[in-house]
């Protein structure tokens, strides 16, 4: 490899990045900015449930129960008079659940039995449905308890003491999601790299490069190193933001974080280079890169739903994505304070992936240059 030729490509790429304030901003600061916006989502919200109540019984007792529901800040209650109204509200997505208290409710309670109450859930948003089920059941149990205070309370025979292994204080949702989001926001610079290559082909400047003594490997490495180092600078604002603005703990070692971020950037940028070297226009590069980086990053990389190891196909597919491994590493470093020995597997996977993708990129580039 000719070091001078490699360096000249490197310098050329730096100039491209530095001379456009917008590109500069996008490469250095956009990860921190997007992280800021995304993390605002993970602060624990109120989680209000819109509830319709149809009291068919109209007794003091049923009234007492609907009052209990109405006074809960988690519910926003509308009163309705029949099923047609409930159905119309459900179709219009104005309510999440409806509670129907049948006639004879008070009688059943007075006889000392269990009075049936119907709950109609909107089944589409399953997480809201589960939430509504949980809090309605809790209210029913409380109400039953107040009805039975004369009975001796029996101690709970089995209790689960759930203990979080790592995060004892702070906003658990945000603290665990921010380290997971860091890999995703770093796919922005990767997009930039994919386009830098496609651009050269589209505007025709690649042909003049072919006429120089430059070799494919030097060219690809020059592009890669330029964008990897430029993106690495973007890690600092991201880290500061996570650490001090959001108070996410960081228990790992910083040199290790930098080292593994380089491995991750190499792998995902090499993927980008491969895309950039096989397409003819930047538009195509963008469409492909969106399919490769964007949707899979959110849905397949284990950011929210962990990867189901028993499903071989999806495990295989996920492990092809550099993001998957870096999500594990980033969480392990921030939250668990893991050492390299604890995560040699994802680290090795990143190194392997970056070698493979760089190799493929160089190969495909050589072929197309000739």
């Amino acid at each position, binding site marked *: 490899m000719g070091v001078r030729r490699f360096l000249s490509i490197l310098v050329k790429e730096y100039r491209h990045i530095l001379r456009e304030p917008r590109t500069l901003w996008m490469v250095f600061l956009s990860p921190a900015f997007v992280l800021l916006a995304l993390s605002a989502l993970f602060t624990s919200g109120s989680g209000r449930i819109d509830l319709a109540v149809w009291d068919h019984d109209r007794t003091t007792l049923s009234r007492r129960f609907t009052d209990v529901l109405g006074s809960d800040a988690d519910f926003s209650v509308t009163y309705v008079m029949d099923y047609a109204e409930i159905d119309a509200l459900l179709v219009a997505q104005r309510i999440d659940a409806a509670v129907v208290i049948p006639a004879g409710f008070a009688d059943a309670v007075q006889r000392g039995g269990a009075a049936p109450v119907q709950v109609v859930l909107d089944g589409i948003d399953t997480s809201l449905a589960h939430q509504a089920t949980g809090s309605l059941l809790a209210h029913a149990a409380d109400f039953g308890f107040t009805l039975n205070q004369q009975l001796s309370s029996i101690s709970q025979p089995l209790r689960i003491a759930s203990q979080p292994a790592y995060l004892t204080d702070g906003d658990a949702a945000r603290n*665990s999601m921010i380290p997971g989001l860091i890999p995703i926001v770093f796919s922005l610079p990767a997009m930039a790299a994919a386009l830098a290559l496609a651009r050269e082909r589209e505007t025709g400047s690649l042909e003049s490069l072919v006429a120089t003594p430059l070799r494919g490997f030097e060219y690809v490495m020059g592009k890669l190193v330029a964008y990897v180092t430029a993106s690495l600078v973007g890690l600092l604002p991201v880290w500061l933001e996570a650490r001090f603005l959001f108070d996410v703990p960081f228990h790992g070692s910083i040199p290790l974080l930098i080292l593994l971020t380089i491995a991750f950037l190499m792998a995902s940028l090499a993927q980008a280079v491969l895309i950039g070297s096989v397409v003819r226009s930047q538009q195509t590069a963008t469409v492909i890169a*969106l399919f490769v980086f964007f949707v899979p990053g959110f849905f397949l990389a284990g950011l929210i739903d962990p990867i189901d190891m028993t499903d071989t196909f999806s495990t295989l597919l996920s492990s092809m994505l550099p993001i998957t491994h870096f999500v594990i590493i980033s969480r392990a470093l921030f939250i668990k304070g893991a050492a390299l020995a604890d995560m040699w597997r994802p680290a090795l996977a990143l190194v392997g992936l970056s070698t493979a993708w760089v190799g493929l990129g160089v190969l495909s580039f050589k072929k197309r240059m000739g």
Partner: protein
Amino acid sequence: MIDSLHRIWSLVVKELLQLSRDKLLLGFVILGPLFELALMGGMVGGGINNLPTAVIDMDRTSSSRALTARLERTDELLVRHYDGGVDGARAQMQRGELAAIVVIPPGYGAALVDAGRGAVVQVIVDDSNYVVAAVATSTSMDVASDVVRDLTAHYGYVNRAGIDMRFIARFNADLDDRPRSITAMLGLIIFQVTLVIAAQSFTRERELGTLEQLRITPLGRVELIVGKAVPTLLIGLVDGLLMIGVVALWFEVPMRGSLPLLMLLTVPFILSQIGWGTLISLVSHTQQQSVLFVFALAMLEVACSGFIVPASDMPAVMRFVSNASSVQHYLVILRGVMLRGAALGVLWRPVLSLAAIGLGSMGVAWLRLRAGLDTDSVGQWLRAAFRLAAERRQQRRAARAGSRVENKRKQSPEWTGEPA
């Protein structure tokens, strides 16, 4: 009017010709969404299952074995017996090999039936992903309440007066998560394809220098925007129709409403993407910049779409911001028509929001074109837009005065907008 349609038509033909020349792009634009939806729809939305869990049984009685067997029977947990002690299991969790550790203490079986004491089982969860921690906790609590119910039945505790809640779920009786996640993906895929194509429509011409050629044709500002929008709209509608077909026929998500209505309401959704895209395309100098804008916008849209965090869980500020998210409004329409069989009457709110987003962004894009592409910063092009408006006002005033400005009006800066 006829002339104008004719000019738009030739621009549309040019765009479609250009698109058909790039086979790779065409393939990705038409088949990519279908493939991605089929692949991801099969993998995502099954819920969180098979979390690796270690059970440390220090009691070794029939009751502790029964508890372990109950944990094994859940879909959520993948239980493995572990004899290496809590510290060994914690080291495995550190390596990411375990999601939860269940510790059954010695004397568990005896404490369970001793009404005075009660047993405590410790569950250590890996909270480096809070979703995993929540699922592991709630699953073990469910199992515990099953154990308690069987115990009370067995020992004949009295059934007290109370409320017996009976749940039924409308539209989705099994509370299957798939309809929700697949519709979210469908919306996001249409969004990303149309946005990308629209976002590069002008930047590409600008970067390649062909925008100058377009500028000397008789195409007007509005004609240019409309002509660029039509191919994107076509692609979006074809993609949408194909994907709805896959969702309904392959994934067997019910189609309860009217398909023509759904396709009709997809139009404002795509138009709002075209508005955003055109605007991005006009403020970017290079395609690289426009893509980065697209990516940043796409991340915000995913975040606001309610896929990651339900909209009701968002903080108030973000709930307000998410009103600008067209994906969120479209998902209300899509789920309303497809899953709930809603008619237009109850969907006016998201439809109006989409129309507002589309018209607003296109209006700004039009202003941007009017100000001229030589202006660089936002301040510059706003000033240029105001200056042009002022000039035009002056000309009108002069025209009203009946002087000989007829010629000057014709020379009024067309959308080339060279700064005077």
